[in-house]
């Protein structure tokens, strides 16, 4: 079927309108000169200016970016190793438990993951802050990274690795020069996913953080609870623009790589 009937076109238009109208409305109102959401006071970038002067919000954003960077890197490294173990070692002892553990954070309600990790940190008497949140984010990012890399490993041609080994490469050299470059797009996608998940998380961070480590979602959350403010619209628009740019750039890069046959 290459032609869509009117019913299916309606389903597409209505579905995407539902997904995008709220975001577009938010972006439009970030340029509203009026403080009131109900009144359109003309085009203005005023709120972007006040945003740049909002020191607590900016430092929270910087903290979130650093935290997402470190936790995504940890999650990707561990998730890639987990995916390799699951794909390569066949039916080893505890495989079911292990794959269950790797995938469970995907569906586990955040309140439970957050609470349980906090209780662990308290019991181990660890000072809470940047590193406890990083560990928590790396733990739930691991599952997502594992799935993404595993999907790539399904269609992997193992004879390439065997050829490298036959030519005298050590397992480590084989991994770095053959395996990793071949699964690189999936590893990059996994990192990006773990990065945005960490950047977006409110609940787990709230549980595992300590004094002095307030992330951007935590700041946004308290601002949103206090009421709608055009300044938050501006912050959200920047975040949306940032994510959209990264995702579009990543998919274009991937397409080009595929076109080059890499």
């Amino acid at each position, binding site marked *: *079927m*290459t032609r*869509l009937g009117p*019913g*299916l076109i309606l*389903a*597409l238009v209505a*579905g*995407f309108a*539902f*997904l995008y109208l*709220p*975001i577009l*409305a*938010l972006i439009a109102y970030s340029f509203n000169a009026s403080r009131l*959401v*109900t009144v359109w006071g003309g085009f203005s970038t005023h709120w972007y200016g006040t945003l740049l002067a909002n020191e607590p919000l900016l430092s929270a954003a910087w903290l979130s970016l650093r935290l997402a960077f470190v936790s995504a890197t940890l999650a990707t490294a*561990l998730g890639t*190793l*987990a995916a390799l*173990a699951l794909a390569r070692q066949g039916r080893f002892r*505890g495989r079911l438990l*292990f794959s269950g*553990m*790797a995938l469970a*954070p995907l*569906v586990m*309600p*955040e*309140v*439970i993951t957050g*609470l*349980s*990790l906090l*209780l*662990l940190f*308290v*019991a181990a*008497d660890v000072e809470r802050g940047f590193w406890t949140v990083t560990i928590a984010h*790396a*733990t739930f990012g*691991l599952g997502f990274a*594992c799935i993404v890399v595993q999907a790539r490993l399904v269609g992997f041609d193992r004879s390439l690795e065997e050829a490298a080994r036959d030519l005298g490469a050590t397992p480590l050299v084989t991994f770095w020069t053959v395996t990793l470059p071949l699964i690189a797009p999936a590893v990059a996608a996994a990192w990006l996913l773990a990065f*945005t998940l960490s*950047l*977006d998380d*409110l609940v787990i961070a*709230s*549980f595992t953080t300590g004094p002095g480590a307030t992330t951007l*979602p935590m700041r*946004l959350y308290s601002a*949103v*609870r206090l009421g709608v403010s055009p300044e938050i619209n501006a912050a*959200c628009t920047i*975040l*949306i623009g940032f*994510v*959209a740019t990264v*995702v579009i750039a990543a*998919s274009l890069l991937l397409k080009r790589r595929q076109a080059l046959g890499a």
Partner: protein
Amino acid sequence: MAVPYLWLGLFFLAPFVMVLRIALSDAATALPPYAPHFEGFAALRDFLAGLDLENFGLILEDPLYWQSYLYSLRIAALTTLIALAIGYPLAYAMASAPARWRAILLVLVILPFWTSFLIRVYAWIGILRPEGLLDMALAALGLSDQPLRLLNTEAAVLIGMVYSYMPFMVLPLYATLEKLDRSLLEAAADLGATPLRAFLTVTLPLSLSGILAGSALVFIPAIGEFVIPDLLGGPDTTMIGKVLWTEFFSNRDWPLASAVAVVLLVVLVLPLALLQRARLARAGEAGGAA
């Protein structure tokens, strides 16, 4: 290869043991600061003897708790059904679209998921609040000049939940519908089936694993949802995630919060098992087709 095992054992499995342990202890002894103590095996016996089911008793007795569980199940079920009703036609249309459109449509479904979850919920506050965008649009169209007062109602929670979890429903549905062999539909049509009958007897049964996977992916996290009912719902929309949050952060009753989490996990076991079955069924289908 052992590193991820150790990591998961340490930071995923061990915490649950902690939750269980604290859920079984007295409020007085488990209040923060909660001193770490590693007892030997002799102490383990004393520890087991000292276990306390009081917190679980409280959850069973106080209607606040079990009503919150029931309400969470209700909201999660409604969210799943509405997401399926909107997501199925969307996924079907995407899978029927010309091949060169599909990749773009897929990115368009995932893109909102990559933008902040908090922002998307926040956008709905601006739409649903009295004299918000929805009221303005209805007034402009001459449909209604009365404010709808949707914010802080169950309807607002449902809208926010369906909106936030939509990609989880559409993606698995799209994956199964895209793989569907269209010649089966042609065969049904050749044999005289009406489009509706062909859909009901061919498409729907063949996409069942996608329906099941999508429903589980929406239903399971929806039960424990905290942010959406907190921001969009009113005082009557007390879901269990919010109860756990309040017990923990406001009442500082860690054992009770842990007990709430343990019961929530038990509630989740059935849908998790269903999800696992759907995954296995899909793996079986893929194996059979290869």
